Every structure is written in C-alpha cells, then in structure tokens.
C-alpha cells in the first residue's frame, strides 16, 4: 500500500514532481560543474602560467653565469664546464616527469659576424627526443617562448644551415628574413639562411639562434650543453619546501619523503640534479614565486565562488521542496483524517521527495559534467578532468539539502489539523 501511494504521487502528480526533479537536477548540475572546475582550475591555470617561461634553470656545477641581463659583458666566457647532451632525456625520467611541460638546452658561444663579436645560441626548437624508457617527447623553445614575435618562421631542428636572428642584431646589421649570413667561430666558417627575425623584448634580441647541432659543430663542442631551461608544473611553496630549499639534508626521513614526493619547485630541481651529472638546478624565483601566489589566489577565489553557488543551489532546492510540500496540505489532511499517523505521513512524503531527488540528482550530475566541459573548452581550450570523488560529494549535498528542505514542510504537516485544512482555511 505504501509503495502504491508513493507510485501514485510520482506518476499522477507528474508536473509537480518533474518541477522538483528539474530544480534538484539544476542544483546538482551546478554543484557538479563548480566542484569539478574548482578541483581542476589549479592545474589549468598552472599550464596557462607556463607562458611566463621556465621556472627552473640547470647549469654546470662550477660555471658561473656571467652573461647578464643588460648585456654588460663579463671577463671570460664559460669556465669550460658543460652538461652532457646525452643525459637530456633523463629529465623526463624523474619522479615528477609528467609535471615537466617543456624544456630546452642551450649552448652559448661567441661568434664573429660581419666582423663583430656576436652571441650565438644553439637550442632545440621543436625537437623530438627518444627517451630511455622507449617513449618519445617533443619539446623545445617554440613552446616555451610564447611571447616572442617572429617575423618569418621558427627553425626546424633537422635543417642545420638555418638561423633566427634577434631583432637588435637584425636592425644593426640590416638582416632580413631570407638573407644568408656567414658566421665564424673556432671550428671555421658557416653560411646560414635566416628563416626568421624575432623580437623577444630581452637580451636574447642580441643573439643569433641556431639548431643545437649547428652550434656544437661551429664550436667543436660535441655533445655539450651550457644550460637547460625547464618549465614544470609545480605546487606552491610552503614551510616544508622552504626548509628543504635551504638544505635538503636538514629534513627528517619522513619530511624528506613528503618533500620528494610533492611537486615543489625545489624537489623537482633536486631530482633533476640527481639525473644530470655535475649540475646545479636553480628555481627561477621570479617565475616560481609569482606562480605560487597567483595559483593560490585563483584556487581560493574559485573555492569561494563554488561555496556561494553551492549555498545558492542548496537554498533554492530546499525552498522549492518546502513550497511544494506545503501545497499538498489538503491531500495530507485527507490522509490524516482517514487515520494516517504523523510518522507514516512524513515517511511517505520523504520517500517521494527522495526518489524524485535521486532521479534529479543523476540527471543533474551528467548535465553538470557537460557544463564543466563547456567551461573547460571555452576558457582553457582543453577538457576538465572528471574526478570520481565529486559523485559522493554531490550525492551527499543533494541528500542533505533535500532532507533539510523537507524538514520545515514536514513540521508544518505534522501540525496540520485535518478538519481545518479540508474545510479550506
């Protein structure tokens, strides 16, 4: 009999129940979309922040980086220490390999161009590297220097006799895209075809960029790399990582484990040092620090907006449930008049509402996934990853909110005097 009554309400009062289900579905979809976006926003924004360039630089241990911000030339060039090109693949084999978005090696040399000493940098542009694990990665500076304005095109690593010229050099020496330039270094002279002129807005405008192999052949430093820029997704610094950054040896075994297994910029740098012989990996504080600040703010902002929308949808759902239960006072009055007990009446109402909520919640969850993907694709151009843990969260929210919304209505029903209601007052 109980289930027959429940069925009766659900099917005969179809419009009303559909309305409740729709509201719950909307609320649930809002919760699903917002929570999914909230969990993923850190990762997404982190990727966006990669446009600021590398947050870790790797240098040979003893070499001091004397080439400088404002082109003030220091005494000698490098002290003769280099990193090994053959070890570059190792960077993609560290514990946090998947957090390394892009990286590029550099080999700097001074060459003579038009009778003047000019800096030449060999690097990867869009290089595909086979890893020791059998996989392959494609990386290079055309992904890392997103702010470069290139007139012409980026180089292809396989075409060794090509170059890109910095805007300052190009202006001074009157070089245009398509020209052929001749540079000479320790290992002889070489003709290079200029495929592009770039404006970087920093001191690389004073450089000529060539594929890494070309620079190595010109300088006779086979397999040598003078520095590496690494762009990695990192977790904002906290107490532990600051302590570790000062001296990793000061950590206890347990702290060390936590630190090593968290994607702090310092622990990623430490792991890179482990796989590159005689290297020093340094966090570029300008990028790493600011990234942390912006990530924290964005996460907190999204969290608060999510909380607001959750409260909003919760109140909306419970409001409607209250309104629709009150509306049924006459029906309830009748049940009570023919001997229905308060307990069983509330139980009946609750069951009906919860069944409706279940249906609405399921529909809402999937609709919410849709909304999250719309947000992901429109804003970040990539899908928002679906976290299974959102399901229980949304289920609990819908359940609690529906029950809470029914409570004032049920209290009202229990106080109903059947005679009054049926009389129509």
């Amino acid at each position: 009999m109980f289930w027959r009554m429940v069925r009766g309400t659900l099917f005969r009062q179809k419009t009303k129940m559909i309305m409740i289900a729709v509201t719950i579905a909307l609320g649930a979809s809002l919760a699903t979309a917002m929570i999914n976006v909230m969990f993923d926003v850190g990762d997404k924004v982190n990727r966006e922040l990669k446009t600021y360039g590398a947050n870790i630089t790797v240098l040979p241990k003893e070499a001091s980086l004397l080439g400088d911000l404002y082109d003030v030339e220091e005494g000698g060039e490098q002290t003769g220490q280099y990193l090994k090109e053959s070890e570059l693949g190792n960077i993609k084999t560290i514990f946090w390999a998947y957090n390394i978005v892009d990286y590029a090696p550099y080999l700097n040399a001074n060459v003579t161009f038009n009778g003047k000493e000019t800096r030449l940098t060999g690097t990867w542009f869009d290089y595909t590297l086979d890893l020791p694990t059998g996989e392959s990665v494609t990386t290079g500076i055309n992904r890392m220097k997103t702010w470069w304005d290139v007139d012409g095109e980026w180089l292809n690593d396989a075409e060794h006799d090509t170059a890109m010229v910095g805007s300052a050099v190009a202006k001074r020496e009157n070089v245009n895209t398509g020209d052929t330039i001749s540079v000479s270094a320790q290992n002889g002279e070489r003709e290079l075809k200029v495929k592009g002129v770039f404006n970087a807005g920093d001191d690389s405008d004073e450089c000529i960029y060539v594929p890494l192999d070309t620079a190595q052949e010109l300088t006779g430093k086979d397999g040598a790399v003078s520095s590496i820029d690494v762009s990695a997704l990192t977790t904002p610094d906290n107490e532990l990582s600051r302590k570790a950054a000062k001296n990793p040896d000061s950590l206890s075994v347990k702290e060390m484990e936590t630190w090593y297994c968290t994607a702090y910029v310092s622990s990623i740098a430490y792991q890179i040092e482990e796989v590159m012989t005689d290297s020093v990996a340094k966090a570029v504080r300008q990028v790493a620090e600011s990234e942390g600040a912006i990530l924290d703010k964005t996460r907190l902002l999204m969290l608060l907006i999510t909380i607001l929308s959750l409260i909003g949808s919760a109140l909306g759902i419970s409001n409607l449930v209250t309104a629709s239960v009150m509306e049924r006072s006459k029906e309830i009055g009748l049940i009570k008049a023919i001997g229905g007990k308060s307990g069983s009446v509330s139980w009946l109402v609750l069951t009906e509402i919860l069944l409706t909520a279940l249906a609405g919640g399921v529909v809402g969850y999937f609709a919410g996934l849709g909304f999250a993907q719309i947000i992901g694709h429109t804003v970040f151009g990539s899908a928002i990853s679906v976290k299974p843990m959102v399901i229980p969260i949304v289920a609990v929210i819908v359940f609690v909110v529906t029950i809470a919304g029914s409570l004032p209505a049920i209290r009202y029903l229990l106080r109903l005097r059947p005679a009054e209601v049926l009389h129509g007052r």
Partner: protein
Amino acid sequence: MNKRKMYLRMVTSSIMRRRSRMIIALLAVAIGATIFFGLATIYIDIPQQMGQEFRSYGANMIFLPSEDGESISDDTVKKIKSSIPENDLVGMAPYRYENVRINELPFMAAGTDFEEVQKTAPYWYITGSTPANEGEVLAGKGLAETIGAGEGDEISIKIETGDDKTEEFTFTVAGILQTGGNEEEYVFMSVEDMERISGAKEGCDVLECSIRQSAQELKDFSEKIESEIPEVTPRLVKRVAESEGTVLTKLQALVLLVTIVVLGLTMVTVATTMMAVVVERRKEIGLKKALGASNGSITGDFLGEGFFLGLFGGGIGIGLGFLFAHAVSLNVFSRTVFFHPVLIPITLGISAGVTILACLIPVRRATDVDPALVLKGE
C-alpha cells in the same frame, strides 16, 4: 475606496496574510539577486585585483639611455615618473652598474633604491636583512659563495677611478640575495653608496618600472615616452607584459562563464519556486473570476506582487551580494571591493523581471480555465 487603493490593498494583504509562502518566495528571489550581485562585482573587479597579483612578476618596462655610455639623469627620471599615472605605478627602481673587484675577482656592483626594489622585484629572497645603513651591501648568492662571504662579514670592494688607480672601500654584507637569475652574481648597494665610491656622478644606467597596465597600454605609453623624452629608450619586458594579458584574459573569461552558468541555473530555480507558490493559488484566481474580475486585472494583481517581491528580494540580494564580494576580496586579495552602483538597477531589473515572468506563466494557465472547474477542485 478608489480603484488604486483597492489594488494596493489586495497586493499588500496577499503578501502579509500568506506570510510563510511569501517568505519562501522572497528568499528565492534574494538568493538569486545575491548570487548575481556578488559574482558580477567580483567579475568587474577581477582584472584590477588579479592585475595586482601579476605585478609580483616584477618590472614590465625598462628604460635605457638612448645614447651608449650616457646615463639617465635624475631630471629625466622625474619626468618619466610624472608621465605615469600615479595609481598605475607600482614601483620604479633605478640601477647603476660599475665594474668592481672583490678579492681581486671581477664583479658587477649595482647601486639601487632598496625600497623601490621590494616593489619592482617582490620575488627577491633575502637571507639576513636589506641594507639600511651606509656601508652595507646585499651580496648575490653566487658571488657570496665565490668569495666565501656570509651575512655580517666585511668585504672590501675595489673600484677603478681612472688612470689605472684604484680605490678601496669596506662594506658589511647585510644579507644574501637569491633569485635564481643573474642577480645572484652581483653585489647591490644603495644609490648613495654607489655615488660615494664611484665619484659623485648622478643618474642611473637602467630604470626598471612595474606598471599596472595591459600590454597594449604599455606599448602606447612607450611610444609616447619615446617621442616626449628622447633621452631614454623605453623597452617593454615582453615576457612579463604579454603573458600577463594572456593569463588575465583567461581568468576573467573563467569567472564570466562561471557567473553565466551559476546565474542561469539560479534564475531557473527562482522561477520554479515562484511557480510552485503561485500554482497553489488557482482557487483564489477562480474565485476572483467568479466575482467578475477580468483576466487583465488578475494578471495585474500578480504583476504587482511579483514586482514588489522582485524589488524587495533584489534589495536584500544587493546587500548580501556586496557583503559576499567584500568577504571574498578580503580573503583572497586582502583588499576591499569597489561598490559598483550601476549594478543596482541591473540587479533589481533582473530579479523583478524573473519574478514577474515566473508568476505570470502559471497565472496565465489558471486564467484560461473556467472558474467553475477551478472552484470545484477539478
């Protein structure tokens, strides 16, 4: 009793007598208005608030002397400073470079204004303290390691004074600087100290500015400076200036889209609640019709109620929404939020509009029905 009085009386008494239902309806409208007002305020404020955070990337424009070997004079610095809107200028740090020798090794010494540097390069990580007194320096980490100096140690800096003569000065290392960049190989001192050791030459070699403006505004600004103050060449730090625009646009788009989705869903929720409250009153509508009320006057009654609810709920929502935006801003950005009066009529308009629309749909359905059927309960 004239017609208008009667109308007002019907509207107000319908609200007052059915208090519990009206509270529900009012609550629904207020929630909608709160969410709209709160999110819209945040959305409008985001570029400004987040822009401030992005300034932690440091200088986005540097000024160099146009002539090689020249320096930027104090007068020029003042001129540049006065041409930047005061509110947009975060910091402006001059740098003056000299070649020096410490322990007979060549290094670069920079004279700067440490107070301004904290604003243009907030990412500098200093162990120890920032030099505050005469004769104190900040040593880059790499330099400190090379010469084996620590915090509190005394170092002697030799500087060429021309004609192969050198002068020697003693400085105390106040702190060690870590940046992960080239600055770690430098030694930094105050402008005054720099002038003292290098002879009283005024001016600076580079002027770093952190300006709260978008890449396009900065470009326009640099063109303006170039033509107005020919002694200096402004250069945009493209990495900082352009990346900021990219990321900020994404963030703003995110908040906009979230606002639209949340708003759309909330409005539907408000509408369903209003509909549920009105559907209940079919009997009342039937009775009015039986007493001879026209469809138009019944619709008018509900219109008035909806309008009243919308305004009242909207008003509550504006208050609560502002409190919410304020709380968010304080928590996230540690700053107060600006009240945008233009949002008031928009919020009131939307909440009244949604409420009226939500009332009218069920009323229309009810007025179409024969009053006899409604009253009989079919």
